[in-house]
């Protein structure tokens, strides 16, 4: 059995605020002690700049950094560590894709972007489309909040559809897509697939080789790791074809005013001093996560989410947005004419942390006909008590505000 109390004790912030009920995990997760320790240990025993080091500290730093790359590759089951590029986060990873893979597209080509994408998986493609005269095909969702596979098939059949930008799971309404089926469909049409895994990695197993996707991105801070680090996985075949994006040290082989030669992949995509300590922290988080019984964590989260949605359905005036068959442990709510922001303020007064707003998914909110929702998002350190208390305060608050 999964021991949530013991699990929770690994998170210093939750110990520091024993009354806090943190239900904003889709925005960022708390960090286990071992991750903070790993980052600190890096600074206290290995800190140096990486690569080209003629001294042992530089070798230690390089081993730590390149070792982190290996850890990420194993976590995603990438065929090679060379397919892993470190970025600041999922957002930068998606910008990197748009500015490198995107350069392989020609005017008139089409990029399919689903309506439930986070802005990070829409705006970079929009900017690219404007620059390169591409068009964006907005892919609709079903009433339950899943990708419309029928429409996807139609889009993929279009002769100029070249790239599909799709999230593994939605941050705004929690739908988990049938990402295997989607990747398979896309591949059959020779369409490149970029998967935004920002919300998936902390909860679901990921195997990029099984998926057969060309690109997969995520952020460290949403998977129990530090801020300031993210990952772009790019399949080697694609990686070999793409130009660099940012310029600077590390990414070049020779520089002269007369012209510059770039380093071999993935080096040419990592300009300048990378977020070394953060990569080390990410590796610690992924190693720690792999050591957990991940099926048990997921079962725990799923049970809590069941408890949450059962409770929510019993409170008059609560509307749950997104009814996908497979959902993250996340619920997006509105309350008729009571504003989500007001509800969140009363929850906060009882030390219950949730998020309110458009969750950086405005096209989706427009499709749902709402401007703002209150999002409750769970992680494995949440308890049945957390959920029960949240439900009770929510019910009282709505009572009071109505």
């Amino acid at each position, binding site marked *: 059995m999964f021991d949530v109390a013991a699990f929770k004790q690994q998170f210093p912030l939750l110990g520091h605020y024993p009354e806090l009920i943190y239900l904003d995990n889709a925005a960022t997760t708390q960090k286990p002690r071992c991750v903070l320790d790993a980052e600190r240990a890096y600074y206290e025993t290995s800190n140096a700049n990486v690569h080209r080091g003629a001294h042992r500290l530089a070798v230690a730093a390089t081993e730590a950094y390149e070792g982190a790359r290996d850890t990420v590759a194993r976590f995603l089951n990438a065929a090679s560590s060379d397919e892993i590029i470190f970025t600041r986060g999922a957002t930068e990873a998606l910008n990197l894709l748009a500015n490198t893979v995107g350069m392989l597209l020609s005017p008139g080509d089409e990029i399919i972007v689903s309506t439930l994408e986070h802005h990070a998986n829409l705006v970079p493609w929009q900017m690219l489309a404007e620059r390169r005269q591409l068009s964006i095909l907005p892919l609709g969702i079903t009433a339950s909040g899943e990708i419309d596979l029928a429409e996807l098939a139609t889009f993929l059949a279009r002769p100029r559809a070249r790239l599909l930008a799709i999230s593994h799971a939605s941050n705004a309404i929690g739908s988990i897509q049938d990402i295997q089926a989607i990747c398979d469909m896309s591949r059959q049409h020779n369409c490149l697939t970029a998967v935004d895994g920002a919300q998936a990695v902390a909860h679901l197993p990921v195997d990029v080789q099984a998926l057969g996707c060309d690109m997969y991105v995520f952020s460290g801070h949403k998977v129990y790791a530090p801020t300031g680090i993210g990952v772009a996985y790019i399949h080697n075949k694609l990686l070999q074809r793409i130009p660099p994006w940012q310029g600077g040290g590390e990414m070049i082989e020779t520089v002269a005013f007369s012209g510059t030669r770039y380093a071999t992949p993935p080096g040419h995509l990592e300009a300048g001093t990378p977020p070394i300590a953060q990569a080390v922290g990410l590796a610690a988080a992924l190693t720690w996560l792999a050591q957990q019984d991940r099926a048990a964590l997921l079962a725990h989260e799923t049970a809590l989410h069941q408890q949450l949605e059962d409770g929510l359905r019993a409170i008059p005036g609560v509307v749950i947005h997104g009814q996908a068959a497979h959902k993250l442990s996340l619920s997006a709510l509105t309350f008729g004419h009571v*504003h989500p*922001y*007001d509800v969140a*303020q009363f929850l*906060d*007064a*009882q030390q219950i942390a949730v998020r309110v707003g458009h969750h950086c998914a405005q096209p989706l909110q427009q499709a749902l006909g709402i401007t*703002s929702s209150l999002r409750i998002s769970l992680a494995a350190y949440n308890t049945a008590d957390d959920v029960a208390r949240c439900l009770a305060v929510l019910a009282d608050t709505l009572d*009071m*505000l109505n």
Partner: protein
Amino acid sequence: MIPTELLAHPFGQTITLTQLAATLDAAASWEAKNRLLVQLSRQLPDWPAEYKTADCKVSGCESQVWLRQDRSADGHWQVAADSDSRIVKGLLALVLTAYHHQPTNAVQTFDFEGWLQARGMQRFLTASRGNGLRAIVQTIEKQRQ
């Protein structure tokens, strides 16, 4: 000109900042402060839909906020505001108390942020750069320049 029905509220005229400060200070917990803001919001008129036009919408807020401002014949600034959030509307009541029906120079020397901070309510200021309450106050002050 601001429609008079939008100005039918006591803030800045019969209700003063001193009074509000006392009431807010008496509300010790966040819960109590939230409740007070909801109560205050009920004294601000709900704007009819036709007045909620794009040109008077304040952007970058977590809820929708509409704001109209004008100078009356006697040199006082008139301010009216509405929001779809009760708590934000309660905050708007505070803003109006500071800015509505005040002579220009009185307002220019007033530190509204400091006043809120002294009430332990800075959390409504820091949500984000250029967002929320700060955006509203900045909008007011900018329009007056």
